[in-house]
């Protein structure tokens, strides 16, 4: 029960007035970010990251900074549900599945029930994921202390192969987008030999492409351009949430405990294996429909159809931090941005965090418990306020978001070149989104490119260029095999369905 002791110490850190204030600030900012088009978890955190540079230099400041940023993430996860249910506009990709039953419920005059169900199940999903993190992450970290370069490279390989095997997008497009991310990460000075790669004589590219700029452009500007093209009208019901509705819904929710548990398991699994919150929510919705007694009524406003995707999305979003803090491999784009933050603040993500930065790690884990309670309180009490933000006309809110993106891009390195790159990435994001080139693996590749390459080179140095080092022991061998299985999963499932059809 060493974990509980560390956790108790974490609560002491997280419960300071300053950190509690940051928690609520983060949640409120996060919900606003989640509600607004063009701002989401990943680029919201990316834009606000430069503001924490100063904060992180104070003693204990890195813990405060990660609490602020992770609470923005929780807030964004909560916020996505508001727009899906009230306006049928998923503010975040992982709340698309929430619209299936949430919006019909709002149409039938039950927006309060739908919102309460969504927020409560988000909370439950996150809580289960945090409990998993509390007890699993020290074990994973202890295990990972033994990792050498081949093991690390095989973990990276597994991460990226999982994207190809699990994404809805065509596998070769996923591959192309991902490799483009790796190529962008390789631009600039080679960390080992010092050679200049793909800079073509310009000094701007010496330090390479910063993933924060890519995130702000791809997710921020790209999203605005898409929203613009789809038309600008927001039509939707008003939010009414009073205590009576909340209590009545809470009385009804325990009936769906099995759905909650099933969705939490799906969510935690998909978050740790980098599938991400979005597929988790769809998968959990599908599973709930198959197992439910009245599954054929799904899509007409069943409360279960809100519980399932919301629980899974929030569980996955939270669980995505487990590989981030234990292995330094983020499970989602937002976790990737948080990882980038850790690196900028001078922390080395990975198993050593649990040894060298105990206060940071357990402060963060404790803040996940508290942050989600704070989040539940904030969203339940302030829904009308957040819904009102969506009534601000797009022609006012869009330029302000663009200005925020530009400032965010500029402040990363105080460079105008970055603002230009942001615009370029914005156009790329718009085109990629329309042609189903996935952005998440590309962003993860930009973040992890250098580390994956370093692990690969060290592994190759150790084995004098022999690729069989990736199968040299049971651990690395099974990781690599699993990675290859996931890589060829689209092919395997295709062959499998052919065989089944042929035999049928």
């Amino acid at each position: 029960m060493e974990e509980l002791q560390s956790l108790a110490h974490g609560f002491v850190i997280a419960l300071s007035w300053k950190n509690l204030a940051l928690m609520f600030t983060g949640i409120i900012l996060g919900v606003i970010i989640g509600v607004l088009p063009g701002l989401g978890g990943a680029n919201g955190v990316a834009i606000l990251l430069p503001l924490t540079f100063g904060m992180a230099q104070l003693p204990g400041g890195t813990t405060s900074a990660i609490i602020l940023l992770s609470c923005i993430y929780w807030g964004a996860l909560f916020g996505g549900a508001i727009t899906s249910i009230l306006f049928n506009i998923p503010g975040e990709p992982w709340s698309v599945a929430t619209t299936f039953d949430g919006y019909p419920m709002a149409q039938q005059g039950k927006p309060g029930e739908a919102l309460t169900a969504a927020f409560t199940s988000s909370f439950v999903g996150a809580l289960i994921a945090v409990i998993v993190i509390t007890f699993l992450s020290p074990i994973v970290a202890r295990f990972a202390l033994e990792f050498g370069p081949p093991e690390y490279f095989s973990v990276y390989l597994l991460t990226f192969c999982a994207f190809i095997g699990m994404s809805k997008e065509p596998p070769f497009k996923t591959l192309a987008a991902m490799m483009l991310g790796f190529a962008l990460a390789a631009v600039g000075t080679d960390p080992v030999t010092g050679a200049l790669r793909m800079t073509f004589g310009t000094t701007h590219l010496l330090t390479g492409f910063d993933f924060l700029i890519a995130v702000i452009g791809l997710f921020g500007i790209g999203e605005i351009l898409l929203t613009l093209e789809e038309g600008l009208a927001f039509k939707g019901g008003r939010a009414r949430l009073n205590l009576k509705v909340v209590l009545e819904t809470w009385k009804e929710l325990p009936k769906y405990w099995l759905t909650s548990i099933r969705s939490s398991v799906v969510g935690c699994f998909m978050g740790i294996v980098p599938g991400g919150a979005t597929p988790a929510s769809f998968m959990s919705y599908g599973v709930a429909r198959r197992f439910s007694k009245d599954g054929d009524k799904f899509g007409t406003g069943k409360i279960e159809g809100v519980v399932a995707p919301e629980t899974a999305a929030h569980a996955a979003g939270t669980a995505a931090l487990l590989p981030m803090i234990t292995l330094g491999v983020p499970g989602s784009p937002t976790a990737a941005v948080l990882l980038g933050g850790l690196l900028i603040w001078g922390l080395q993500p990975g198993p050593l965090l649990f040894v060298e930065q105990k206060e940071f790690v357990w402060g963060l884990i404790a803040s996940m418990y508290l942050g989600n309670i704070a989040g539940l309180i904030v969203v339940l009490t302030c829904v009308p306020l957040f819904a009102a933000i969506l009534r601000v006309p797009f022609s006012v809110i869009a330029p302000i978001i663009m200005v925020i993106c530009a400032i965010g891009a500029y402040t990363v390195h105080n460079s105008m070149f970055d603002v230009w790159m942001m615009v370029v990435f914005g156009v790329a994001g718009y085109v990629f989104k329309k042609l189903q080139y996935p952005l998440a693996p590309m962003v993860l590749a930009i973040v992890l490119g250098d580390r994956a390459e370093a692990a690969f080179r060290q592994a190759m140095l150790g084995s004098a260029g022999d690729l069989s080092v990736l199968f040299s022991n049971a651990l690395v061998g099974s990781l690599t095999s699993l990675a290859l299985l996931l890589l060829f999963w689209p092919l395997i499932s295709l062959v499998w369905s052919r065989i089944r059809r042929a035999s049928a």
Partner: protein
Amino acid sequence: MSEGPPGGGSGRVALRQKSAEILVAALFFCLGAVVVYDSVRLGFRWADDGPQAGYFPFYIGLVICIASLVNLGVALAARQDRDKVFVQVGQIKLVLAVLVPTAVYAALIKPIGLYEASVLFVAYFMRWLGKYAWWKIAAVAVGNSLFFLVIFELWFQIPLPKSAVAEWVAATLRWVAAALRPIVNAVLSVF
């Protein structure tokens, strides 16, 4: 390698899905080729001290080329009659009407300052898309820039590119804040 929109269709289609797919796949191929080219220049083999600088990127570039060739093949094989529209003329006009001003905005940040450029940018948007009255536009545009000035220059003390005017406003606000501090402290000490 690129293919223009096939003629004969309605004038409302700016770019067909198929053409866009082909265009982007070709672009990916070119990028992959650039990566391979530069990696070969750096050396992608083994030297005495281990892998050369281009060792890892070489294979990355190679995979980009292969993947984009597959994507290109899939796009070319797509049936013409099931062709979907990538973007309509009206849509692309709307997107460009935002993209071009954004580029102008980015270009203006350095010469006239970020806060002033933001005023113009917000004003343009509200006038062109929203058709608001001028006094509303002025209030929102100037208010927005003032808000960010307070946040960045005063609170977080992160300097953004700014003109003499913004510098003067920031200095004045800083002076007012300094003057107000003893008063606020005095009021707070009463409680």
